[in-house]
């Protein structure tokens, strides 16, 4: 199959790319091999186009960005169709999952959602356009001249959201997506070039294999040129990028995150409700094949409902089996498949050792539910491998999260009843960043404080004019 062209640069930067092309491991994506000079030239070109962006009104920018974003959610639009045809082989997701993910992501790229996030972040978004009078003096906010976005590639679409955020604060953008997320930022920028060439002139997407010993000269040049670096990835990647980012550049990190679920007895008061609860849990686990930072690794279930925690594990297995038909799993790498065998095999041994554990699995389908009474948080190997642990009361979960407190992100809660306020406070103190329901867990609202930070305010520089 022809590899996808993993780069989109402004028209006048085309010549900087040179002739040399390489292919990603597996051959799904091809990309130009940039020298440090080529990369510096590209960064310069993006930065100079940013001047026009700064002069545009933020609402006008949002209107253009949203118009292109909406195309990805609009049935029959050629941009959406192309995305849907490319995602399964480039992102390792099944076609129905590609559709679900694109629907969810594209919702956030529409004009109303972009205005919503602007208004949530800035009392008056015009502060991005001109100085605004305050009680004392006036002030204005502006994004960095050039932001470099290094994506993780685990969930397709994340780097489009990242590039939209930067353009909203009038920053020129260079996106280096992760391998699993190359298609959407490129298609988005191709759409933007058609719709609003002036904005598109300040943005580029370019894949290259990044990090560590394979670091290219181009990557070093990009890190040196960027005024801010936004990096998504595992802790090792973050440390590596941080160590190579100049002290004067702002760095915004979205490191490895762990999410979990809590099911209280109030969500298990009758059989019908229990099944509905379980169906929501299964969907939260299966979405993104559990590769999202918002995907639950483990679900704690309160004892005392009509369905016991062990019983819920069985129901969850049935629900995941059913979802396998509606929303099939994507492909796994050999490493991911191996990790699942190790977890399943080790659990089989524990069962043989007569430990109080149970396991349900889909055979060659990846989904696996492990019931175990041991309540300490253990990360999953992902790809729909989820643990269920019993807990006497939801409040008792908190101490078990201590070992992972700096990696905690989303806690999906259902049926907390009267404990809710107290539980939220305890989770906040335990390090949790987001509390939501299972249905919403995969889809944070546009205004969410992503990993505890304002998605736009974390990018901008405030300029105060005193007196």
């Amino acid at each position, binding site marked *: 199959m022809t590899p996808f062209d993993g780069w989109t640069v402004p028209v006048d930067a085309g010549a900087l790319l040179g002739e040399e092309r390489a292919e990603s491991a597996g051959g799904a994506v091809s990309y130009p091999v940039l020298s440090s000079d080529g990369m510096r030239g590209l960064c310069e070109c993006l930065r100079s186009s940013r001047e026009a962006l700064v002069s545009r009104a933020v609402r006008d920018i949002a209107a253009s960005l949203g118009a292109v974003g909406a195309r990805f959610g609009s049935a029959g639009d050629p941009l959406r169709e192309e995305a849907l045809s490319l995602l399964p082989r480039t992102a390792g997701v099944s076609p129905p999952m590609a559709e679900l993910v694109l629907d969810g992501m594209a919702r956030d790229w529409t004009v109303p959602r972009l205005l919503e996030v602007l208004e949530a972040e800035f009392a008056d978004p015009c502060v991005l356009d001109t100085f605004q009078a305050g009680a004392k003096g006036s002030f204005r906010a502006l994004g960095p001249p050039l932001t470099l976005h290094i994506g993780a590639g685990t969930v397709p679409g994340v780097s489009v959201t990242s590039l939209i955020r930067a353009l909203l604060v009038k920053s020129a953008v260079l996106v280096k997506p992760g391998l699993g997320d190359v298609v959407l930022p490129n298609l988005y920028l191709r759409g933007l070039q058609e719709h609003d060439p002036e904005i598109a002139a300040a943005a580029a997407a370019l894949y290259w294999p990044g990090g*560590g*010993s394979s670091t290219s000269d181009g990557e070093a040049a990009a890190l040196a040129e960027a005024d801010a670096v936004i990096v998504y990835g595992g802790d*090792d990647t973050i*440390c590596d990028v941080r160590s190579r980012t100049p002290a004067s550049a702002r760095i915004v990190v979205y490191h490895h995150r762990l999410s979990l679920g809590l099911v209280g007895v109030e969500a298990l008061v009758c059989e019908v409700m229990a099944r509905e609860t379980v169906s929501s849990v299964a969907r939260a686990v299966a979405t993104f094949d559990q590769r999202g930072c918002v995907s639950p690794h483990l679900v704690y279930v309160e004892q005392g409902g009509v369905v016991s925690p062990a019983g819920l594990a069985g129901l969850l297995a049935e629900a995941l089996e059913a979802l396998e038909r509606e929303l099939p799993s994507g492909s*796994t790498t*050999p*490493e*991911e*498949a*191996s*990790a699942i*065998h*190790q*977890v*399943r*095999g*080790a*659990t*089989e*041994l*524990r*069962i*043989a*050792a*007569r*430990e109080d554990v149970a396991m349900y699995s889909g055979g*060659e389908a990846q989904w696996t539910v492990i019931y175990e009474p041991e309540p300490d948080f253990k*990360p999953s*190997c*992902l790809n729909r491998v989820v643990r269920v642990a019993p807990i006497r009361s939801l409040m008792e979960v908190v101490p078990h999260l201590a*070992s*992972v407190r700096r990696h905690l992100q989303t806690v999906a809660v259902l049926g907390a009843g009267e404990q809710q306020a107290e539980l939220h406070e305890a989770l906040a103190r335990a390090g949790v960043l987001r509390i939501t329901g299972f249905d919403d867990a995969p889809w944070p609202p546009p205004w969410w404080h992503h990993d505890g930070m304002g998605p736009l305010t974390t990018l901008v520089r405030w300029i105060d004019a005193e007196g």
Partner: protein
Amino acid sequence: MSQAAEFADLSGELAGVFSKGVDASWPEMAFDDLALRSFAYQFSTNPVYQGFARGRGVSPEAVGSWQDIPAVPASGFKAVRLVSGDPGSVERVFRTSGTTVGTERGEHHVLDLELYRASLLPNFSANLVLGDADVRLLSLIPTPAELPDSSLSYMIGCVANHDAFGRAEFFVDAGGRIDHLALRNALARAEASEEPVLLVGTAFALVHWMDAMDDGAWAFRLPAGSRLMETGGFKGRSRTLSRKELYAALTQRLGVPTGMIVNEYGMTELLSQFYEPVIREGSDPGLTERRLVGPPWVRTRVLDPVTLSPLPDGSPGLLCHLDLANLGSVCGVLTEDMGVIVDDGFRVLGRSTTAEPRGCSLAMDELMSATSLNHEVRP
């Protein structure tokens, strides 16, 4: 026959055949016979393994060849205690490193250290020492007294104590600190003596040592016949060198040609090791063409990562070993390493990035990184 007597009989028989050396011919039938008897023994004495095998629909009556014997996942050594025999008779527990927060350590409960020695000595000897009784052993791996739960330290301790291998010196303590002065003196003495040395160390220890010494002003010319055993790899840690770079640096600093540098591949979960047979065969096909070869009492297969069905030679998949030296635990072990069968051995293609860190190399690196911060080892 009692369980203990049964173990002693079979263990003795295995040690006897191991002692014939790694070049002895092992027809498939001979291996099958020992493998099937070992499986029957493990099935009857290890209730956890029996339950695991039954869960997979396998029992000794249903097994026709060694390929049918169920392999436990390497991570099973973290989850349960795998002892085939009386747990009260365990002589030593070896542990995987797992020093990273949140990871559990795998435990290999060894019923009979004699069988471990019977496996490791002829293999080490064939691949690193050959007939040279006067080779002096210099070790960057701590002594077994320093690291009693490291199977690698135990192995080097055995080698050091064995009459055939001459004098041994150790230069790294349990805290990962290198005694630079003593090591430099030992290398200088060796250079002057014309007596070949065998230097053993983890890849990390070797890198840390060269980093610390790297003022550009030193290089030894170790006597002809000197050799090096490197083990452990880098496993994605911060300071990584390609193997080519590491070997080139070692050649430059020590005067040992690449053809005399051997990679050893071992795991706590297996009591037998694999070596690149470059010294043993007297020829080096080049680093990218090298293969790892185990002793004839280990058989290795490559399995499809998704279905776990056996793959034809040449296809990449998960390495799965059957090691008869594991009689006291479980012989069949499914690893997390990707590899490919090459002739009578295999090549490792890298390790799952999602897998937890394992092995001595990483532990040593963490210790050494910590020490270099505290003690300013770097120039």
